[in-house]
């Protein structure tokens, strides 16, 4: 919408218009202001628009000395010619009456454009242009109205980012231009019709104020003399310069010029004094933003005024009519429409909004005007909230005080968007949940539709009933129209401050204020009910998915019902539509499910399982499975064959969102998720969008659907703002307005008024949330879901001597570092360093080698800390020594003694029976240092037996003393012998086992992650004739990742040292798994660790012992994950026990692993909740047998102390993100002290 071409005005005048809009920095402002003049000029002579146009009043004032003022004084005379040039000219004047009446004269319009337009086009144009004739004409000619038209929405609070995008397409525009918000234009039309009855301004109240004189003199002012209240006359020459001038800001000088001076003049126009700063601060805003006019009367003044004397004034305030014109306002910019990457934290708009809010609140406070009616929800907290809203503004300003430079230049402070809101402590969270969990067991139940194939438990039927109610919203429709919760109703005063009657306007005895957006209105703001959904927050395992699917079956749109009845419609009968519609189409039969990638497959299969055959069409919309045009598939005209459920991932939503944004917000032509208006949208694991600033969250907000649902077991993860994002997605008024949210929840919470904040949160949650927990009991005392018992055992692990050395070394160093930092007083700054060391300590509990693995370090820390770490490791020779000793003790010596003939002998011998148990061949042949072999168990038993008798272990055969560190298990690599090894690493799961190397060496492919896992192996190629190996010969696998260079040997063996090499934890795990295999071979197990590198070490260990396993971690693609989960679930019992290795982070949430019955937690996490969540993957609905959980904890280590901290529910890990909060840091300091005690 460039007007430059159409509107060639003289430069000078253009400049004037630019300046005339006091708040604006944009030259395009001219059109808007022109309209303003059209409205204002004929009725109110410029001199009386006090504060409306400071330039004019200043020229009226004798002080006006600026050279430009002369030109500006010609304003009124210039006006007609301006109009002529812009092409509106006489017609506009001529039709001013009709303009006033209708807001828009179609006749005139037709004259200008030279053709009659269809009424629908006309309507759109008027909406788009905000009934501004000139704009409409311009838009009609440049075609921009078409682009804007489809995106219009009646409710501007839900204004979309797309719209913001389209608006931004044309370069900068004045922020208070009326057309800035196309979405608002409908309301505008409505308002303007009402506005015409309103006088130019209307009295609302008066208050007293003590101004101070800036002048001395006699009889400057008399009692009862009226004074004019004006803004400072010295305006900065251009707004641009003015903005930089805000350095001088006072406490609330967020005014963009930093100028809040309000003067008052006597009837002769002489300046007498100024209003005190506190009053001036908000009065200036109200004047500048053209909301109010103030007329003063002198109440008391000394006859002889000296500078700085106090002069008492009574100010009568009137609201200007234009304040009620939506265009006169900056729209509430607080719609999370922070789309731009580089957007400052608080935009100018936001600041204006904040100032306006504050101004209005202060004003109403001063004149003692109270709302007649405000929303019930807010009533309870209103008084405090409003006051606090004002404080909030101050609070933010105060927060910028300490660093004025920073804030003045780039980003004005306010909502710290990135790190918004304080974290909730665990106990607060508990309280909150407890409050939200009031669940009425008398809730009626609903029966699912007969197409639903599963049986629902009673509480699930209750959920269904509740959800259907929410969707149909029966209650609400019967209710009378209620006021929009954000608004407050005020009545116009009937008498003024002197008790004189005021002129009344027919049918206008009330006005409405939205204190959150600063909007004023004369019309009753109707509550828009647009939340036909809610939050289903049942605890994990209660079957949220099933409940949701029952809803999908049971509540369908009318169109869907019709379509299902007309299944035999032939294709020809279907209405034809163009292939790709460019507008957003309805998808009345389709429910969109957005879930984390790892759950897509699960949703798909559950959707199938829950439905009687043929009653449910569900598709996964992901990756290459995406259909060309979702729009074509789901549109209304395709109702008979449209999918009932479309399942997609957050990632897809985000990427399509980006595409649509890149395409200037043209939803329709994209043909994807955003081109449809779904019947229902469901966000699974909705805490994915907890950050309202994230693009994923924004993408989800934009999904159009009639019914909106979120599923999450944890609606609040750690900040109250987490909940806001859900509410925002649901479009729940008024809470989806962030300003409102901030006022009632964030601010009280941050000012430690927890009870009030949580109370409000409860009010928000109550109607929205259905939450049941597993430990809820029905009135008969029955658990909600009878789950089989679960037994959790903590298993204490004793570290081997070598491991303990490594551990002690790291421990002492961490302790030293900590002590040194404490002494130096830099603990607070060295959190990352200390945490890095604690991390290594924890790793050394799992496996000493882990501490050397940089990838984990990087995983867990910020890059900077990792770099620090790396340099710290570089000079860490001692530790390396210890680990070396651990890894390859006496490696060279061994090499000398291991001759090929020995290996040959061992191999030959392996065919023999065990000398101890007579098994033939031996089970896990194991050799001692003297090369006599037996079954592993026999040999170890015998050694144990001898030790128990207090004897030195000796060989059963040659009576050679046995060095316990020199017992080797013989590993044969001929695949035929070793039964049932599933290809070890995840990479192999999906690669067909084509390569012979992988077949013959099942576990070597994973050694790249685990440098030491096979470091002790001795390779033998029995058919080679090399008699001996050189001292560090090729037969020994060194610690580097040597993999055998050839795969041609049919039968190779290698030796693996027993006992010393796997860590104590791995050994403990293997013991359990082997015992399990022995006792109950069909049971499947799940192994969790937070260190994926530890999983890398577990893989070869399991492979060696022939334990079948699968792996699931964050690095895998969706298809791989699905394949692994399916394989794990589907593996038949007869195939034997299967182990699933999961990373705690990737596998801790959402998954359903009920086919397993054993859980092994390899390492503790800071918060037990996370572990418990992981355990619940197995112990959840669908689990049929008891679950045994083993938590491996190293004795006398940091892990044991972590358990104590877990008990105290301290959430130490969060401290990495909480560097600012001193108190919590101190608490954590204590934690660290304890960890290192």
């Amino acid at each position, binding site marked *: 919408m460039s007007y430059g071409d159409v509107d060639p005005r003289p430069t000078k005048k253009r400049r004037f218009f630019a300046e005339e809009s006091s708040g604006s920095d944009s030259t395009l402002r001219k059109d808007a202001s022109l309209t303003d003049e059209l409205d204002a000029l004929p009725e109110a002579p410029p001199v009386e628009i006090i504060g409306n146009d400071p330039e004019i009043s200043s020229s009226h004032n004798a002080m006006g000395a600026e050279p430009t003022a002369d030109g500006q004084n010609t304003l009124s005379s210039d006006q007609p010619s301006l109009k002529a040039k812009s092409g509106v000219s006489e017609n506009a004047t001529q039709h001013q009456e009709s303009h006033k009446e209708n807001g828009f004269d179609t006749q005139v319009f037709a004259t200008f454009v030279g053709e009659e337009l269809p009424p629908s086009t006309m309507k759109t144009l008027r909406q788009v242009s905000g009934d501004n004739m000139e704009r409409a004409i311009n838009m009609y000619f440049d075609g921009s109205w078409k682009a804007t038209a489809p995106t219009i929405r009646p409710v501007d609070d839900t204004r979309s980012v797309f719209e913001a995008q389209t608006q931004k397409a044309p370069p900068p525009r004045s922020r208070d231009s009326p057309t800035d918000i196309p979405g608002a234009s409908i309301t505008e039309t409505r308002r303007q019709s009402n506005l015409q009855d309103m006088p130019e301004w209307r009295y609302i109240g008066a208050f007293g104020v003590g101004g101070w004189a800036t002048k001395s003199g006699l009889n400057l002012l008399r009692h009862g003399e009226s004074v004019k209240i004006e803004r400072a006359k010295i305006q900065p020459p251009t707004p641009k310069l003015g903005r930089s001038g805000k350095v001088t800001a006072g406490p609330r000088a967020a005014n963009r010029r930093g100028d809040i001076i309000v003067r008052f003049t006597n009837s002769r126009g002489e300046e007498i004094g100024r209003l005190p700063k506190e009053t001036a601060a908000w009065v200036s805003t109200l004047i500048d933003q053209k909301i109010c006019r103030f007329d003063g009367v002198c109440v008391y003044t000394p006859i002889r005024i000296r500078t700085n004397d106090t002069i008492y004034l009574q100010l009568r305030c009137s609201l200007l009519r234009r304040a009620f014109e939506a265009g006169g306002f900056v729209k509430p910019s607080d719609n999370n429409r922070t789309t731009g990457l580089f957007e400052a934290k608080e935009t100018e708009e936001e600041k204006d909004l904040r100032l306006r809010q504050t101004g209005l609140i202060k004003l109403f406070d001063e004149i003692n005007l109270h709302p007649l009616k405000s929303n019930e929800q807010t009533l309870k907290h209103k008084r405090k909230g409003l006051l606090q809203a004002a404080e909030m503004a101050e609070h933010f300003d105060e927060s910028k005080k300490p660093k004025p430079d920073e804030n003045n230049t780039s980003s004005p402070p306010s909502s710290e968007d990135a790190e918004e809101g304080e974290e909730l402590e665990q106990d607060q969270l508990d309280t909150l949940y407890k409050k939200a969990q009031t669940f009425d067991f008398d809730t009626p139940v609903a029966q699912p539709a007969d197409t639903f194939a599963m049986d629902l438990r009673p509480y699930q039927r209750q959920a269904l009933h509740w959800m259907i109610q929410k969707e149909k919203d029966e209650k609400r429709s019967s209710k009378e129209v209620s006021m929009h919760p954000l608004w407050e109703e005020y009545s116009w005063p009937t008498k003024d401050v002197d008790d004189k009657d005021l002129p009344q306007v027919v049918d206008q005895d009330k006005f409405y204020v939205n204190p959150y957006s600063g909007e004023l209105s004369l019309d009753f703001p109707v509550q828009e009910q647009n939340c036909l959904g809610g939050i289903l927050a049942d605890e994990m395992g209660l079957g949220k998915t099933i409940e949701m699917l029952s809803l999908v079956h049971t509540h369908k749109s009318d169109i869907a019902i019709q379509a299902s009845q007309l299944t035999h419609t032939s294709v020809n009968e279907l209405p034809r539509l163009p292939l790709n519609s460019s507008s957003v189409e309805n998808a009345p039969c389709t429910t969109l499910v957005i879930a984390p990638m790892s759950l897509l497959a699960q949703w798909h299969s559950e959707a199938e399982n829950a439905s009687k055959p043929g009653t449910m069409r569900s598709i996964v919309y992901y990756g290459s499975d995406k259909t060309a045009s979702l729009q074509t598939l789901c549109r209304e005209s395709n109702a008979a064959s449209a999918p009932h459920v479309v399942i997609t991932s957050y990632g897809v939503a985000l990427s399509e969102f980006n595409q649509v944004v890149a395409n200037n917000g043209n939803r329709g032509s994209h043909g994807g998720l955003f081109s449809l208006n779904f019947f229902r949208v469901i966000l699974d694991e909705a805490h994915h969008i907890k950050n309202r600033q994230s693009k994923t969250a924004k993408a989800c907000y934009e999904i159009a659907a009639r019914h909106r649902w979120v599923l999450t077991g944890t609606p609040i993860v750690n900040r109250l703002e987490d909940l806001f994002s859900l509410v925002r997605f649901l479009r729940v008024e008024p809470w989806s307005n962030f300003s409102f949210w901030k006022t009632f929840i964030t601010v009280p919470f941050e000012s430690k008024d927890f009870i009030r904040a949580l109370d409000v949160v409860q009010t928000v949650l109550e109607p929205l949330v259905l939450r049941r927990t597993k430990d809820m009991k029905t009135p008969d005392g029955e658990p909600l879901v009878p789950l089989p018992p679960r037994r959790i055992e903590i298993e204490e692990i004793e570290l081997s001597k070598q491991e303990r050395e490594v551990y002690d070394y790291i421990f002492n160093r961490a302790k030293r570092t900590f002590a040194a930092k404490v002494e130096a007083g830099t603990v607070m700054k060295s959190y990352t360093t200390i945490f890095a060391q604690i991390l290594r300590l924890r790793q050394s509990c799992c496996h000493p080698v882990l501490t050397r693995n940089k990838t984990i370090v990087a995983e867990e820390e910020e890059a900077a800390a990792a770099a620090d770490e790396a340099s710290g490791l570089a000079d860490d020779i001692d530790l390396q020594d210890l680990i070396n000793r651990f890894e390859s003790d006496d490696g060279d010596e061994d090499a000398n003694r291991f001759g090929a003939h020995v290996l040959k002998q061992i191999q030959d011998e392996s065919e023999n*029976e065990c000398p101890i148990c007579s098994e033939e061949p031996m089970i896990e042949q194991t050799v001692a240092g003297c090369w006599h072999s037996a079954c592993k168990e026999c040999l170890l038993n*015998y050694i144990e*037996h001898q030790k128990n008798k207090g004897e030195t272990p000796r*060989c*059963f055969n040659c*009576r050679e003393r046995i060095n316990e560190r020199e017992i080797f298990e013989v590993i044969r690599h001929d695949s035929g012998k070793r039964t049932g090894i599933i290809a070890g690493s995840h990479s192999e799961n999906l690669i067909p086992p084509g390569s012979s190397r992988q077949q013959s060496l099942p576990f070597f492919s994973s050694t790249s992650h685990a440098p030491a896992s096979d470091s002790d192996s001795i390779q033998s190629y029995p058919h080679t004739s090399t008699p001996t190996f050189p001292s560090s010969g090729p037969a020994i696998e060194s610690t580097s990742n040597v993999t055998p260079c050839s795969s041609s040997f049919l039968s190779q063996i290698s030796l693996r040292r027993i006992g010393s090499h796997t860590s104590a934890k791995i050994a403990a795990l293997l013991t359990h798994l082997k015992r399990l295999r022995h006792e109950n071979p069909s049971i499947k197990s799940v192994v969790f660790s937070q260190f994926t590198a530890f999983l890398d070490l577990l893989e070869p260990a399991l492979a060696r012992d022939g334990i079948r396993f699968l792996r699931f971690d964050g690095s895998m693609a969706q298809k791989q994950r699905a394949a692994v989960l399916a394989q794990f679930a589907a593996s038949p019992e007869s195939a034997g026990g299967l182990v699933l290795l999961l990373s705690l982070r990737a596998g801790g949430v959402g998954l359903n692993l009920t086919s397993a019955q054993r859980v092994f937690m390899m390492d503790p996490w800071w918060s037990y909740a996370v572990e418990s969540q992981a355990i619940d993957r197995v112990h959840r609905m669908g689990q049929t047998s008891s679950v045994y959980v083993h938590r491996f904890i190293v004795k006398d280590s940091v892990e044991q102390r972590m358990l104590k901290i877990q008990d105290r529910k301290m959430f130490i890990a969060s401290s990495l993100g909480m560097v600012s909060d001193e108190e919590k840091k101190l608490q954590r300091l204590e934690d660290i002290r304890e960890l290192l005690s």
Partner: protein
Amino acid sequence: MALPKRIIKETERLMAEPVPGIKAIPHEDNLRYFDVEVHGPSQSPYENGIFKLELFLPDDYPMTPPKIRFLTRIYHPNIDKLGRICLDVLKSNWSPALQIRTILLSIQALLGAPNPDDPLANDVAQRWKEDEPAAIQTAREWTRMYAVSENR
């Protein structure tokens, strides 16, 4: 308690490939209990004698050695009058790699090479040291008296 594989295998092999001069037959009601006969080695005072022993495999066999006792009286410095045997492999030098067969061979060898320096029957050992020919003569007589006469 099921019989360990090892015992079954040993028993089978003792039956299938008997060692010359040695017989070991398990009791039907207790497969861990064996009746044993060992022939006195030639060129020893026990030549032509057939000595009966009892052998019992304890529960933790082969971790612990079998318990063996001569039932036939024998004049030997390492075997006392209750038939108990002093043999290192039956005590400290036991190894699970040893078997019934090997242990019986050891006993047979012990008959051929008495060791009066590590006595169990002190009076016999004393005599063996002081007057070996006389001791050997007594051993021969005992053999004829107890081992041969009973048998023939």
